[in-house]
């Protein structure tokens, strides 16, 4: 039965006092925080659990976010955390081990939170190629997303490292920012069509296996090959393998599509009732602003879903009361 307090009758904020959260959000990145912001403003009881490992932490700035262009990613999260706190959303530091149907959110170290709905916004991890120097310079002058970081290295000598088939499109795209782009096929087998397209676009090839990235004076200086050549470059682009942090979702039974990513509808609703997902955990292409938007969209849908349940309960209670007083 729904427990209603005196001043909050008829299903509104019905779960406040029984320790059950309306929504537990896992992950306090852009998607999770924006969802929590909307849900907090909708006066839902919300907890956000965050392990504190944002994907974009190595980057000094984030870009392409209207009114927040160039802001350090950590500052966006700080601002977001302050905003959700002002609406009474609880932010819990920690890692979620598993979520069981019901929903029981089991945290590492023991605590269990009970929730009516779940939003998983745990993001993804960039698996970097095993070339010495790549990890060291990741987010500084070894970059991934042209839309996010190419403008800052425009007109400079750029490298694209052939470690992933996605590097071909990345290289075609990068020509928009610099006319000096060298493609290092490295271990990648390029098709004749790939080569033609890259050549037509004005890219240069440097064949041979990459030995390491040359870093000197806290900046990338060049790409050194195993055959004893070093090619001067100011920045390098790599295409990491994006691995979603979706174990919580798959444990709950959320289905994955042919592309290996958990399937959701346009609001982030997964195939499992009551479970939503937003941001990079379901969409590797979402930039910070897109992830925030996905969180906002999911929050609307989550609240609507909760509302439907709240109204049904209220009607039931209403009918019971009416029957008792007849």
């Amino acid at each position, binding site marked *: 039965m729904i427990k209603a307090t005196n001043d909050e009758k008829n299903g509104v904020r019905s779960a406040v006092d029984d320790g059950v959260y309306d929504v537990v959000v896992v992950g306090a990145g852009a998607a999770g925080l924006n969802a929590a912001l909307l849900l907090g403003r909708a006066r839902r009881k919300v907890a956000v659990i965050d392990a504190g490992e944002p994907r974009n932490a190595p980057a000094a700035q984030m870009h392409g976010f209207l009114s927040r262009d160039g802001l350090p990613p950590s500052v966006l999260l700080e601002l977001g955390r302050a905003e959700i706190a002002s609406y009474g959303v609880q932010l819990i530091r920690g890692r979620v081990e598993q979520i069981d149907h019901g929903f029981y959110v089991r945290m590492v170290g023991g605590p269990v939170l009970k929730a009516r709905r779940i939003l998983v916004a745990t993001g993804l991890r960039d698996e970097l190629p095993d070339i010495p120097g790549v990890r060291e310079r990741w987010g500084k002058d070894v970059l991934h997303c042209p839309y996010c970081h190419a403008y800052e290295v425009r007109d400079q000598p750029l490298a694209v490292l052939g470690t992933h088939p996605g590097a071909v499109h990345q290289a075609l795209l990068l020509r928009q920012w610099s006319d000096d782009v060298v493609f290092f096929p490295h271990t990648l087998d390029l098709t004749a069509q790939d080569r033609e397209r890259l050549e037509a676009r004005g890219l240069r090839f440097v064949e041979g296996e990459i030995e390491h990235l*040359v870093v000197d004076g806290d900046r990338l*200086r*060049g790409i*050194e*090959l195993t055959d*004893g*050549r*070093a*090619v*001067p470059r100011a920045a390098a682009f790599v295409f990491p393998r994006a691995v979603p942090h979706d174990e919580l979702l798959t444990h709950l039974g959320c289905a994955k599509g042919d592309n290996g990513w958990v399937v959701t509808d346009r609001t982030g609703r997964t195939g499992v009732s009551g479970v939503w997902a937003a941001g990079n955990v379901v969409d590797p292409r979402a930039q910070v602003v897109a992830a925030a938007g996905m969180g906002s969209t999911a929050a609307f849908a989550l609240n609507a879903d909760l509302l439907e349940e709240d109204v049904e309960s209220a009607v039931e209670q209403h009918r019971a009361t009416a029957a008792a007083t007849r």
Partner: protein
Amino acid sequence: MQAPTPGSVDSVTEQTFDERVLQAKRPVLIQFWATWCHPCRMVSPIVEQLAAERSGDLDVVKVDLDEEPELAARHGITAVPAFVVYAEGRPAGSWVGAAPKHILEQKLAAYLGSSAAGRG
């Protein structure tokens, strides 16, 4: 006008290029290099040794890629270490990459003819 010290590997710049390379009486081996380039550091002692051994018939100079981007661009240098051989004020040949001394000597001989190749 400073005269090149026989056997040394001086740096040339845009300003000294004419005098030291284009107007040189003898063939010139130019090594393009960069401070950050490990293969360049590996090959530099070999180049210095070669310069000393061939001081009778060959000038050897070096160009820092980052200091002299124009010179590098004009020679189409896209990787270092890179070598360009000049004879009678004109480029006679070029190659890229660090290599052992005997390969360096072979390349020189190929571009300058056997008369200019050191023999032991």
